[in-house]
């Protein structure tokens, strides 16, 4: 047994999401590497929700179309996912609700009746099903018990009793043997981003709820006490970013998180951050638009928005992590880079990146810590916008004795006082843009473009962000190189050119309808020879991408 894909589905409100995570942890505890894809509608109750839990001995970051095991909490689940079911797929279903499903691999259990007999609420049907699943997978009950004890602080005995009932009534369909490798932390991309921000020195997080970034707000609010964070949910995204800028002016490291619509509201203040040189880090979780679009699905449509958001010209740092390790590392690095250069950073995520569940192997994450930024040493007079060789002026925060600290949205002189003088205007614009030049040089020493797989083929896949997992998997299978720029601005031209060495045919794989990454590399003088674009809100599966790639290669 090297790999398995399992789907659990039911009505929204059934607790499918949490059940998916518990099942993931069950495999994680016995040494498997996990990826969970979550699919849910933009409604609270009703509608169909499912999670696909894929396990492997090796690192994975994509879900498959074909399912080996299905846990159906309602009859619709079997119907909706019919095309994913193979001849020998196993299943567990509630025989009280669903008619007999043929096939010796299918296990119909009267879950609803068990729940009634245990006097348990309907929501505990999940726990009962997970108990039955544990037995069906040949996993010891003790492992599930441990997880449930960690997951459920309240009603633990009740939950254990119901899980045990499911376990006892079930039978083994397959034996999932424990692996002799260490279990790894197992978390969503959003959690990895949140912890990365903390690692980079976060003091305060401001956000207005918006899918797919709200979980960062929820997570940080939950751990605020451990990290002495202020986590604040103000009246709008406009207030979010302006409060954060006020906070930063006063010397606290702050970040904000949102999605496209909220980011639209933030752009005026993003431009203020560019002018006033305030280091704000923004997490931009993409989802399909335009406008409200598909709120709970995924897209990669804000690349050019992020590159161009805000009026006027100012430097910015943009990064698009592709898995939990990169999410953690680059969130911390973004904080450091923002503060070092006093520029805004944007972490481009999306629903698949933020809400999918990944393993996080800290051994794979390059060590980094909160870095020191350029501080005022106390010599008088203080000038907030002191002209320097690299454009970076020393920072001071109120209250600072003998310093008057003035930041300004208007063009300003070195002291931060408004000016309309043509000479000073040019001087200050050059000062701000000079920082980009030094940032670009700095980034040459950081791995900004990842390349995976065989180097001898002349075809390569170009991907970014959450498509990393599926592209690396298919690249490996087809023996073609995968090139993933992680830093998108300033664009790492030199590193990208090196990664392309020997490539004659570059195929861009993206979740948008126009090929935004293809256009970006094109702007920098690189040709893209084909585009595989998917913009139905769903993630590429390896099967789907393989088929499309084969079509392009031939």
């Amino acid at each position, binding site marked *: 047994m090297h790999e398995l894909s399992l789907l659990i589905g039911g009505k929204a409100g059934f607790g499918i999401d949490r059940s998916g995570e518990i099942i993931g942890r069950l495999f994680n*505890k016995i040494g498997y590497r996990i990826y969970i894809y979550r699919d849910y509608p933009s409604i609270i109750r009703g509608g169909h929700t499912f999670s696909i839990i894929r396990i492997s001995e090796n690192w994975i970051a994509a879900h498959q179309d074909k399912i080996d095991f299905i846990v159906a909490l309602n009859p619709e689940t079997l119907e909706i996912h019919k095309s994913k079911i193979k001849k020998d797929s196993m299943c567990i279903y509630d025989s009280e609700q669903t008619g007999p499903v043929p096939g010796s691999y299918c296990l119909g259990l009267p879950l609803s009746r068990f729940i009634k007999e245990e006097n348990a609420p309907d929501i505990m049907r999940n726990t009962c099903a997970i108990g039955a699943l544990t037995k069906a997978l040949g996993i010891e009950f003790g492992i599930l018990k441990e997880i449930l004890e960690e997951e459920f602080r309240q009603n633990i005995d009740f939950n254990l009793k119901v899980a045990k009932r499911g376990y006892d009534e079930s039978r083994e369909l397959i034996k999932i043997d424990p692996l002799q490798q260490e279990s790894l*932390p197992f978390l969503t991309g959003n959690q990895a981003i949140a912890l990365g921000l903390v690692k980079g020195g976060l003091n305060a997080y401001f956000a207005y709820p918006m899918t797919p970034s709200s979980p960062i707000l929820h997570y940080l609010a939950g751990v605020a006490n451990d990290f002495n964070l202020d986590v604040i949910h103000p009246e709008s995204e406009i207030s979010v970013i302006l409060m954060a800028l006020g906070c930063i002016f006063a010397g606290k490291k702050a970040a904000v998180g949102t999605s496209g619509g909220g980011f639209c509201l933030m752009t005026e203040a993003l431009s203020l951050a560019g002018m006033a040189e305030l280091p704000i880090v923004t997490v931009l979780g993409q989802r399909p638009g335009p406008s409200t679009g598909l709120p709970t699905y995924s897209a990669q449509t804000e690349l050019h928005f992020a590159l161009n958001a805000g009026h006027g010209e100012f430097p910015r740092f943009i990064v698009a992590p592709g898995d939990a390790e990169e999410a953690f590392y680059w969130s911390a690095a973004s904080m450091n880079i923002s503060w070092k250069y006093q520029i805004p950073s944007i972490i481009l995520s999306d629903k698949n990146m933020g809400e999918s569940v990944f393993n996080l192997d800290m051994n794979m994450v390059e060590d980094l810590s909160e870095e020191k930024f350029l501080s005022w040493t106390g010599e008088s007079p203080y000038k907030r916008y002191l002209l320097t060789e690299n454009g970076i002026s020393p920072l001071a925060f109120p209250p600072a004795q003998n310093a*008057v600290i003035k930041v300004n949205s208007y063009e300003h002189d070195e002291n931060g006082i408004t000016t309309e003088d043509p000479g000073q205007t040019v001087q200050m614009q050059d000062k701000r843009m000079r920082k980009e030049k030094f940032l670009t040089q700095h980034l040459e020493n950081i791995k900004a473009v990842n390349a995976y797989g065989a180097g001898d083929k002349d075809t390569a896949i170009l991907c970014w962000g959450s498509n990393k997992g599926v592209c690396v998997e298919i690249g490996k299978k087809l023996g073609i190189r995968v090139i993933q720029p992680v830093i998108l601005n300033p664009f790492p031209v030199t590193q990208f050119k090196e990664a392309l060495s020997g490539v004659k045919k570059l195929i861009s794989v993206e979740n948008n309808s126009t090929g935004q990454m293809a256009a970006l590399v094109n702007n920098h003088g690189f040709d893209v020879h084909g585009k595989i674009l998917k913009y139905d809100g769903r993630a590429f599966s390896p099967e789907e991408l393989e088929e499309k790639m084969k079509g392009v290669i031939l």
Partner: protein
Amino acid sequence: MKTQDLRTYAKNTWCPGCGNFAILNSIKAVLKNLQEEGTPLENVVLVSGIGCHAKIVDYIDTNSFYSIHGRATPVAEGIKIANQNLKVIGFAGDGDAYGEGIEHLIFAAKRNADITMIIHNNRVYGLTTGQYSPTSPLGFKGRSTPGGSIEPPMNPLELMLTSGATFLARGCSNNIEFLQNIFKEALNHKGFALVDVLQVCFTFYNMYQYYEKKVYELKEHNAGDYSEALKKIREWDYHNDSPIALGVFYKKESVTFEERLSGYRSDKKDVESGIKKALSKTI
């Protein structure tokens, strides 16, 4: 920090006769007074929006954040969140705070953010050369309403009172000494304080004579009484010809947003072990 006259080298570009001079001189006097009473000036941060009013931060030699139109309030709140020892004073215009950024005032009042907002209410857009504003009277002939504005004005103090503001006052640029006293009281107030200053725009809406005739100082008014405050606030609706009361309408001690926030803060911060703990929980 220089303590003399708090002046900067920025050239003052307000029109001669502008009511903003009264606000500038009053706040400078109050800042000096604060300093004499033991608050170091470096503990003060001024925030402004965009408009004629906003130039005030260029003219005072102290920490400042010259922000964008309508957004002085959240910037001021953010500064106070970051450091509760700072005295944060926001300046905003009527178009600025009552128009584009009105939601921020409502929420700052609702959460009782510990900031002082001084509204330069000239009831006209000055810097954009004379359009009607949220507090212009019905029928106001401005450049965007040549036939007269077809919207009655809002009463910002009434809105602020119902939103939860804990200090509400009105001043007028005609009387500097009185303005100073109000500013001083507003700055000493713990919680959200707003001072609506009827500031004469000499160029686009010169109400000097009108205010001279209409204003009176509140006497024997119980500022601790919500109903009495509401009644007084409603006396003049920014349109009718009623007498215009100046002074403190409402004042109430209440827990501030920042105090509540502090209750959630911890002094522990070990990032490394915290992250390790958070990760190990997920295994």
